[in-house]
Every structure is written in structure tokens, then in C-alpha cells.
């Protein structure tokens, strides 16, 4: 090695402060929300007020006549530009604007365009639509067999080849069903000493990014540029190109920092709409949703899970059956992926020989549901960790001891058949026990203020197989930029990726410039989702940096500049400060698709995420109000690239899940949302953070991950809800099986127990 670039190291594993921190706190950071272009029009969406119906007519005359209105656009106008204007990642089921039918309250039906956003808003309020109402269905279990069909025909996108078989299926609301069979669960259940069966529910919630969805499209001569608050610029480009019938190189998608994403800004949201509007108007068009409008674009799946286990006298789980129903709302979004990719872990982080799983993505007449920080895992954990505690309680076994006896250990096969490697389930469980001082006597409080404690653990597979590409560009003065399409939405990916580049090239992480996603500039990335970036993009970035290092070395050899500083190498080779060295890296993990019949795969995920939580609570039994005295969060994140950011990821995820545990719930009455504002839909504030909260990672290493690291963005969400419910049950004997755990629900449960006893 003769170049001046040497392996200095020490960049990875260092708690580098976020590269963008200063720009953010000083208000200089770039957001799509702030962007204005000359001649730009604002669009305001007119929405359906009924849950399901045939559109009889849309009256836009009053709106179009309003002073200052540029144009009013309906679904028919969209069809004039795009004959088949349906989009979506898993199914092409969502119209750019409603066509023929509306399928949920809040669905976009028309858009008013004006130079002045207030005029656009006023115009939208003047639009009227008439409908012939159709029977609607809201409950996921009911919808699975209902005769009220949300869609006439299923339209799988073809993006995912394993959905092809659903093509053209009629008269069903089940968008996808996933099945897994391992061993002989029926026989094992019949032979078990005990059989337990419970049903759990989770509610519909919203992602609530503080920067609401916003997209802006600018038409060019034969191109279109989209500025959008998106987690998946590469996908947006593909999908827009498909809709328009254009090659990808005529569509340019750019993102800035995101004011939070959490899955709300995945795949395609407002982008198709602003593109159509901009092409029709021949002007830039921007749509910025209000906080309230976000409730009508994307939610987290409500679920119903039936879970049944066979257990031996000495506390070994020998069989488990789970049926999970996912309330997908009116459009599939990524719901079918959630159903399958999370569905196969429904039996939990346990070593069970006989498993039968069924997972159903179901259409209903509610706003579309997609991925929200955990990709369906928190819903499943709510069920299996509540169930686990109920069994332990019933068998009078210590909940931690019961888990110890049953957890998956290194090398044992998960239900899908893949042997478990680098999943620190045992270490996470033991750390929880340690942090809660489980072995010590516990103060159970008084008659009216009762105390209890509980734990929960969880396992998640990463979405696979997915591809990331990165470019490292070394400039002639020796400075360096990373081009990658990972979207920094607050998780600190810019900083982590810069650390990887600097580790390879022997630079300071702070000196690396990270170029934000721009599909004309930065290469392909599947999306920033599901805690995949650190592992996938991290590997691609590492390869790109290694490629650049090798090319620099070759250049030095070629120029006879070995051992000289980088700038000198370029000067010697090109005679002046000129040239580039461009390193590229691509990463896709090995993968085996699950067998159609059995759901088996030897390699379904490149890595596992493990999360655990422990809680101590004090319940006021006269009101059902409770306080969380202590919340302990433990995660396996492999070897963290940036320990400080990873720790805040764990705590941030836990606090977010706390909202979904305690009070967040979109309340529907006949398909109408009754709390569509932050005045009534409350999210956690600082005062809701538990008095004592710790967040940490256990010592671990992910083989195949960049420098032993893996994803950490979601792990903190997994186990919070059941840990709290288990602590409450320990305190009061009252078991909540539906989220959120409101004081009223708990008070009723406690009163019910008192009445039963009385």
C-alpha cells in the first residue's frame, strides 16, 4: 500500500454528532416543504365524504368559476392523460383520483388548482359530488367473508412475482393470504398437556410525521422533476415512468431531509397526483397536506390475531397456531408485504416444532394502511407476548423462566426453516431481567395503588431481497462525496454512511459530503424502510469506498505517485487539479423465496432484529389510570456504527410505540374518522416519557453486516406494548387484549374482575 490513504480506522463505532445537526437547529436544513418555484400552482384536494359508493357526478362549476382558480381536475381528466391511472407497490389498485367509485371517507376525488393556496382551498370546498352509496365493511375479520367487495377485481402489480397468482381474482376482499406449516401442529396440540387460546386486537393509528406529506412536480420539455418528501425516490421514479409510459431517464425525483417518515412516505403517495396535475396545467404544482389530511392517506394496520398454543406440564411450547387478519383499508399499499414478510414470525422468538400460521391482508372501506416503524411486528408481538404471559401465569411459571425455556437459540431453526444466527434473543432477555432486578423482591404497592412488572421480547426479519447501490466520488483535491439514495429522515443515515466511507478511506467522517437522493445523480436504492439501510446500503457504501480506494491506488501506481497525498496523485496524473475517482458498490443479499405450500425457506432474511422491553407500572385501581415507573428497552443491533444515534433510535422508537400503547387511536364511526386532528388524536409529549427509561444494545455482531452492524430503526418499538400490558396484569390481574390501554378500558377490566369475585 503506497498511497497516502491509509487505514486509520476509528470512524466506525464512534459517536459522531449528526452531520446535519447544526443546519437543522439553525433552520438552514433543506425541506421539500419550503420549496417554491416560479409560476407554481397549489393544489387542494376535494375528498369523499362517504365510505363506499358509485360516483354519480362531480360538480366543479362553482369552484372553477371562483376568481383566481386555474383549473379543477377530476378522475376523468386524469384518464385523458393516463388511460389506466392506478398505482401501488403490491397492487395497481389505487386511482390517482377516484374513478367510478369511492372506497373510503377522505379519498381524493378532485383537485382545485390556484396560484394562491387559500383560493385553492376555498375552491375545493365549493366542489360537490353525488354518489349512489354501496354497503361498506370496516372490520378486518368481517371483511374477509363479507359480500360487500371493496374492489371488483384484484390487480397485483407484478413487482413481486409471488403475487402473480392473484391476478384477476374476483369477489374477495382478501388481497393476499400467506400460510406456513411446520411439523404437525394439530397432532401436537391434541397431545399437549395444556392448550391455550386467545384473541388480540390492535387499533388503527397514524404515523404523524411532523412534516406532513408534500410533493411538487415541475414539467420540463419532455421530462418531469418531482421534489418530494419521500422515503423511496427510486420507486417513485419507476412508478411514475410506468404510469406515463416514459423511460425512467425522463423522470427525475429529488428529496431533501424529511421531517420524519416512519413508513408514511413510502413507495408512492402524492407523487402521481402532482405529476398529472403539472402535466395537465403545464406548470409546477405543489400539494402540501395539512396535519389533519394525513389521516386520509396512510395508517398502520389494525389487526385481529387468534393465537393457540399447546404446552407441556413442564412449560415447553410444543405447538402454536396463529391466524392474523390485517385491516388494509381501501388500497393495498404495502399491506400484502407486511402480511407475508412479518406474517412468518407470528409465532414469536420461540423454538416450537409444530407451527401453523395464516396471515390475511384484507381490504376494508377505511383509509389505506401501510408500514409503520416495525412493518407489522408490533401488532404480532402484542398478541404473542400477551399470550406468552397468560400461559406463564396460568401455569404459575415465572414469565422470564418460561421464556428462557422456550426461546430460539443460535443455530435452531425459526418457524420458516432458516436456522437462527446472530440473533441475541437470550442476551436481550437476560439484560432485561438484570435491568429490572427480576430476582429481587418487588414492592407490590397498596390496595388502591397496585404495582406490577412485566417483560416482552420479539424477533423481526428484514424485508428481502432488496438492492442498494452507492457511488463514492473522490475529487481532485482529495475531498470526497457519497452519492446514495438512502433518505435521511431523522434516523442519522447521512452520518452513519459517512462514517463507513471515512473508515475505508481513512478520512474524518465529518469531512464526507453526502449527496441527497436525486435519481438523476444518486444510484438506485430499493427504499429507506424496515431498518434495511445500515445493512444493505451500508454494505454497498463500503464496497463503493473500497472500490474507490483500489482505483486511487491504481491511479497512484499509474502516475508514479505512490505514497503521495491524494491531490498530488491527481495532479501528477492529469497535470493539474483535475479528474475524479469514482467507486461503485452494489449489494443484494442471498435469498430463497418461501415455498408456496409450506412457507418454508432456508434463507428468507439476511439478518434478524431482536428487541425487548421491561416495564414497572403503578395502577390507580379506582380510575384505571396508571403510571409507568420504569421502562427498559434492550436491542440487538449488531455492532453499532454510531452508538449515540443508535441509542436515540431505540428510545425514540420506544416513545413512539408508547403513544400507540397508551392513547393513540383513529376512532371511526361508520367509516368516518371522529378525531382527525392533533387536538383529539394525541401523541406523546415529553411529560409522557416514563420517569425512568433506559435504552441500550447488547454486545453482539452481525456477520455479513458492514463492520458487524445491522438495522436499528424499528427494534425499539417491538416489545413496549405487551411489556406494559404484562406489568398491568401483574399488578391488577386485569388483562387487556386490545390496544390502546386507556384508563377507561383498564378501569372496566378491573371492575369486571371485582364483580366476578364479588
Amino acid at each position, binding site marked *: 500500500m503506497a498511497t497516502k490513504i491509509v487505514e486509520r480506522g476509528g470512524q466506525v463505532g464512534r459517536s459522531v454528532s449528526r452531520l446535519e445537526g447544526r443546519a437543522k437547529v439553525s433552520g438552514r436544513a433543506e425541506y421539500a416543504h419550503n420549496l417554491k418555484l416560479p409560476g407554481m400552482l397549489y393544489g387542494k384536494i376535494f375528498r369523499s365524504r362517504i365510505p363506499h359508493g358509485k360516483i354519480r357526478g362531480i360538480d366543479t362549476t362553482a369552484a372553477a368559476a371562483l376568481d383566481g382558480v386555474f383549473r379543477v381536475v377530476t378522475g376523468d381528466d386524469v384518464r385523458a392523460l393516463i388511460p389506466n391511472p392506478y398505482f401501488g407497490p403490491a397492487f395497481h389498485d389505487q386511482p390517482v383520483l377516484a374513478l367510478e367509485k369511492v372506497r373510503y371517507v377522505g379519498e381524493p376525488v378532485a383537485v382545485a388548482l390556484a396560484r394562491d393556496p387559500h383560493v385553492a382551498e376555498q375552491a375545493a370546498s365549493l366542489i360537490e359530488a353525488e354518489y349512489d352509496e354501496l354497503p361498506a365493511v370496516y372490520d378486518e375479520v368481517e371483511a374477509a367473508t363479507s359480500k360487500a367487495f371493496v374492489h371488483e377485481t384484484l390487480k397485483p402489480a407484478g413487482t413481486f412475482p409471488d403475487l402473480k397468482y392473484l391476478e384477476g381474482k374476483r369477489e374477495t376482499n382478501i388481497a393476499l393470504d400467506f400460510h406456513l406449516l411446520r411439523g404437525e401442529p394439530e397432532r401436537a396440540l391434541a397431545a399437549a398437556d395444556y392448550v391455550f387460546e386467545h384473541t388480540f386486537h390492535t387499533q388503527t393509528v397514524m404515523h404523524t410525521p411532523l412534516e406532513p406529506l408534500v410533493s411538487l412536480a415541475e414539467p420540463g420539455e419532455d421530462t418531469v422533476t418531482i421534489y418530494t418528501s419521500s422515503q423511496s425516490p427510486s420507486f417513485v421514479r419507476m412508478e411514475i415512468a410506468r404510469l406515463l409510459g416514459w423511460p425512467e431517464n425522463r423522470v427525475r425525483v429529488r428529496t431533501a431531509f424529511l421531517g420524519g417518515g416512519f413508513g408514511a412516505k413510502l413507495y408512492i403517495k402524492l407523487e402521481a397526483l402532482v405529476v398529472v396535475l403539472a402535466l395537465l396545467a403545464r406548470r409546477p404544482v405543489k400539494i402540501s397536506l395539512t396535519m389533519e389530511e394525513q389521516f386520509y392517506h396512510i395508517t398502520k394496520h389494525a389487526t385481529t390475531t387468534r393465537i393457540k398454543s399447546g404446552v407441556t406440564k413442564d412449560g415447553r411450547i410444543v405447538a402454536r397456531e396463529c391466524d392474523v387478519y390485517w385491516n388494509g383499508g381501501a388500497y393495498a399499499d404495502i399491506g400484502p408485504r407486511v402480511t407475508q414478510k412479518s406474517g412468518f414470525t407470528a409465532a414469536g422468538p420461540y423454538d416450537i416444532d409444530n407451527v401453523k400460521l395464516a396471515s390475511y391482508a384484507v381490504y376494508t372501506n377505511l383509509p389505506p394502511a401501510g408500514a409503520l416503524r416495525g412493518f407489522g411486528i408490533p401488532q404480532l408481538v402484542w398478541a404473542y407476548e400477551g399470550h406468552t404471559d397468560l400461559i406463564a401465569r396460568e401455569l404459575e411459571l415465572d414469565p422470564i423462566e418460561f421464556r428462557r425455556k422456550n426461546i430460539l437459540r443460535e443455530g435452531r431453526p425459526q418457524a420458516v426453516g432458516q436456522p437462527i444466527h446472530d440473533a441475541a434473543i437470550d442476551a436481550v432477555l437476560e439484560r432485561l431481567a438484570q435491568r429490572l432486578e427480576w430476582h429481587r423482591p418487588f414492592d407490590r404497592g397498596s390496595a388502591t395503588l397496585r404495582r406490577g412488572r412485566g417483560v416482552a421480547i420479539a424477533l423481526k426479519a428484514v424485508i428481502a431481497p432488496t438492492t442498494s447501490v452507492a457511488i463514492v466520488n473522490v475529487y481532485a483535491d482529495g475531498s470526497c462525496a457519497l452519492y446514495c439514495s438512502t433518505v435521511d429522515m431523522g434516523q442519522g443515515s447521512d452520518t452513519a454512511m459517512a462514517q463507513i466511507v471515512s473508515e475505508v478511506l481513512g478520512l474524518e467522517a465529518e469531512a464526507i459530503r453526502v449527496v441527497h437522493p436525486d435519481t438523476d445523480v444518486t444510484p438506485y436504492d430499493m427504499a429507506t424502510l424496515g431498518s434495511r439501510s445500515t445493512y444493505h446500503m451500508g454494505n454497498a457504501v463500503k464496497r463503493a469506498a473500497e472500490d474507490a480506494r483500489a482505483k486511487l491506488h491504481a491511479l497512484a501506481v499509474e502516475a508514479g505517485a505512490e505514497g503521495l497525498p491524494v491531490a498530488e496523485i491527481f495532479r501528477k496524473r492529469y497535470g493539474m487539479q483535475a479528474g475524479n475517482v469514482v467507486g461503485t458498490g452494489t449489494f443484494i443479499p442471498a435469498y430463497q423465496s418461501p415455498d408456496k405450500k409450506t412457507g418454508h425457506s432456508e434463507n428468507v432474511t439476511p439478518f434478524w432484529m431482536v428487541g425487548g422491553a421491561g416495564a414497572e407500572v403503578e395502577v390507580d385501581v379506582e*380510575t384505571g*389510570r396508571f403510571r409507568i415507573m420504569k421502562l427498559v428497552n434492550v436491542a440487538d443491533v449488531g455492532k453499532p456504527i454510531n452508538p449515540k444515534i443508535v441509542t436515540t433510535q431505540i428510545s425514540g422508537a420506544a416513545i413512539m410505540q408508547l403513544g400507540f400503547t397508551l392513547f393513540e387511536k383513529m376512532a371511526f364511526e361508520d367509516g368516518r374518522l371522529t378525531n382527525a386532528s392533533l387536538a383529539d388524536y394525541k401523541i406523546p*409529549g415529553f*411529560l*409522557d416519557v416514563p420517569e425512568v427509561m433506559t435504552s441500550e444494545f447488547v454486545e453482539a455482531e452481525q456477520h455479513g453486516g458492514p463492520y458487524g452492524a445491522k438495522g436499528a430503526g424499528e427494534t425499539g418499538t417491538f416489545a413496549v406494548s405487551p411489556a406494559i400490558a404484562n406489568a398491568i396484569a401483574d399488578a391488577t390481574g386485569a388483562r387487556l387484549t386490545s390496544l390502546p390501554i386507556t384508563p377507561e378500558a383498564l*378501569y372496566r377490566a378491573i371492575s369486571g374482575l371485582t364483580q366476578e369475585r364479588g
Partner: protein
Amino acid sequence: MTPFELVEPPSLREALAALDPVDPSTRAIAGGTALMLMMKIGVFKPARLVSLRRVEERYRRIEVDEDGVLHIGALTPLSAVERSPLVVAKAGVMTRALLTLSNVRVRNVATIGGHLAHADPHMDLPPVLMALGARVFVAGPSGERWIDVVDLFRGYYETVLANNELIVELVVPPQGKRHADYLKCTTLSADDWPAVGVAVSLEIEGGTVKDARIAVSAATERPRSLVRAVEVLRGRPGDEATCKRAGEAAAQELEVLPDGRGSIDYKKQLVRVYTARAIRRTFEAALLDGR
């Protein structure tokens, strides 16, 4: 939000003149924390807003007069009330209630006059002020008048004020030997509006309750003064059993409304428990103070 006319008169007199006696689309705006929310969601579409931000400075003053009466100008921001040593000295329960009211950003902007005139039944201060026997001084084009806070609220988001009347000042009488407390119960996030708020003011003599004022908010259509619960207390010591009976009387006498923060039955239970606890706490503090 649609465009509207905004006027900013430099005096209270001109502000009153700019208001309209009948047209509800003309309204006064002070801090705007509530009104702006209603405008953003389109519940309120003003034709004209009369901003009070430029009226005379004296409507932002906090003073105690020679009789020990606390005067708070209607345009005083809630955070100024919260931080006022005069308020702590004369009506400490207000300070304590303010610390739990919404959040610091709202308190920095919202005014005490707007807080009362808005008449949202979930507000924290109305029951407190009712328990303190407070009054408001009101000005209109045809003159001025006093209204007891107990009589200020007519219904859901409705006061007895005419469309062109403004609250000018809040007045809290000296509390003498009375002790007061406020218990707030939230069922969603910690900084949410209360599901139930209970304010209690007690005068204790010889270990028993000589006089009591109890007011409940958030569970009812408008903040209410309790009558039967007060009767239960009068002449009795504030022991556990008496407090429970008073709580039960409170739950019986109120017509409770459900909302996203609790059903009727649950809110009645909260009224029952929180009324009893608020009385008990106030009584204990009074006893301790009397010793």
C-alpha cells in the same frame, strides 16, 4: 383558511366599535390559540377579526388593590399570570393549575380574557375561578357590567356576553382563610385537555367545613358549581367517608357528557373519585395550615 379582514384598533373603545352586535362572523381575537384552530379546520370562517393586540397597555396589568383584591387585565398572557408573584400570593391555586394547562407555547400566547370568553368546557381555569368566587368586568358599547364567573357560561362554547362585549378584567376577591385546590385528570397524553377538572375551595372552622365551593369542568356541557356535594360537606369534617359521600353526590347531580376522553359512566366515576380526592386534599392542607 379563506381571506378575511383584520383590524387592529389602538384602543379598547375603537375595538368595541369595530365589533358587530349581531354578525357572528366578526369576532375579537387576542392570543388566537383557540380561534386559529377553529379557522384552520374551517369551523369558523371570519369576515372580520378585531385584533386586541394594540389596545391600551393597562389591559395587560396584574395588580392587587388596597382591599387585597387581585386584578388581572384580560389581555394578560397565561404565562404572565403563571409567573406573577401577586397571583401566587393571592390565589396560588391558579398558579398550580396554570402549570398543567396545555403547554408553554400556548400559555405564552393565550390570554386570560380569551381563555374565559372561548367557553370551551374543557378549560382549566373556569372551575378554579368559580371556586375562588371570581368576577369579570365586561365592557360594551352601551356600558360596563360585572359578571360572576359562575354566571359567565351559558352552554357549550357559549357565554352570556353579547357579540360586541369584551371581558376587560378578571377580579379575584381576597380568599381570607379559605383553602383551594384543583385536580386535573387526563386520560390521553399528559398535556391534553382534562377529561375531568375539579376545583375546591373550603373554609374550615373548628375542624369542620364552614363553607365550600366546588366546581367541575370538562365532564359537563359547561363548567358547573356543585350544590349537593357542598351540602354534604357543610358542618362536617373532611374525613374519608364524608369526602366519598360528597364525591358520590357530585356524580349524581351532574349531567355528564361523553367525548373522546371518556364515556358517561367512566367520567361519572372520575367525577366521583376526583371530587372526593380534591376535597380531602384541600381539607388536609387547611388543617395542616390551621395548626
